[in-house]
């Protein structure tokens, strides 16, 4: 649970919007909260903070689309 909150906190920083905390099931791409640039920032931060390396082409926008899903995918990568 704690890990999930940390991921969502990081997403809020990158998207510069607290809506990701209020609605962790929001689609980050269709709402343009996250784009390719934001995705890279996220991956760089994930590597620095959590020590998890996610290859860019593993980040599939269909399955890494919401804060909850991203947290879940990252937990699987741990």
């Amino acid at each position: 649970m704690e890990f999930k909150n940390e991921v969502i906190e990081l997403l809020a920083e990158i998207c510069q919007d607290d809506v990701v905390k209020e609605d962790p099931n929001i689609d980050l791409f269709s709402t343009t909260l996250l784009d390719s640039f934001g995705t890279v920032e996220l991956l760089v931060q994930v590597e620095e903070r959590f020590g998890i390396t996610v290859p860019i082409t593993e980040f599939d926008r269909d399955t890494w689309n919401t804060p909850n899903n991203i947290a879940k995918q990252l937990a699987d990568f741990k």
Partner: protein
Amino acid sequence: MTPYGSFSFFIIIAFLLAPAVILGLKGKKFHSYNIFATVIALAIIFSSSFSESVALIAFTIWQVLLIKAYIAYRKKANSGTVFCLAVIFSILPLTISKLLPYFNQSNWVGFLGISYLTFKGTQLIMETRDGLIKKDISIIRLLYFILFFPTISSGPIDRFRRFDKYMEAEITQEQYKLLLYDGINKIFRGFLYKFIIGYSINHYFIANLGFISQSSFQDHLLYMYGYSMYLFFDFAGYSNFAIGVSYIMGVKSPENFNSPFISRNIKDFWNRWHMSLSFWFRDYVYMRFIFWITKKKWIKNRNSISNLGYILLFLLMGVWHGLEIQYIAYGIYHALLMVLYNSFERFNKKHKWWPQNKFTHVIAIIITFHFVCFGFYIFAGQLIK
């Protein structure tokens, strides 16, 4: 024979794929037959040019050896220099084939589809570097992925891991029925787009512009919109054929177009136009470049990093289309649009200057449409050549 260029091609394909359809409808495995069909189809497509056939075979051997060698190397070590060399070797045939005409040489390296096949090879090197391709790939699978005939001439550009999933998947009778239905549907939509709408625009509108328009300016203006429409219907029609045929062969090739003319901004446009190409550049050029610069902390300003990424991406995309000045100008134009839009988006996030409602959405689509059409006008070599 040009793929999807004539009705005789479709008739040959219909006969060639009839056994695949029967096997699929019976719920039997059919990939071995499809591999055989691909060999026959390639022979028919390249039968008209001996030199292109030789170039295709040499290119394929080169790529396969390179990929195999890199996978073997990557199991033991992971040097950045070796990776860069592997990428350079992988795009070397394409580079030579683009440069040869400038040295007054006959293009003995080039063949139909070389630009598209190069993406597949380079992508395999990059994913091996990422550690996503670990196991040895069987030579047949590798060849089938690179040479898959429905998409050989102009894409859509598939990814190995995606393609390979369809090789592994067991397709039931019911699933195949749906695939076949969708595939045929797409092929007929392709007929409508390419041979009816695209052909009509070119034949009845663009070819008659001299009689329709009253001034030179009007002539160019009408050409700009006419050509943009023609380009879309022609290419989307082709893509529908390629995707439809691959469905019939049990592979869901990725989509290439998603109503590009209703894009609400230029970023949205590149998520809808020639998607398999723009996503390739997004994933393998832009995002990797940003990742690298951000990690090395060479440039602090996020905006500059992103803009540099766009300039790199679109210049490369322009050059990939060809070294002629209009393609490079097309790349620069889109790089410029992306940089400007990027600044606007940032400004708007702060000041909420452009409200989001139905009215502004329609206005945004209209503005984007005109900028996009002007881009195709450059692409066609009408502004500068």
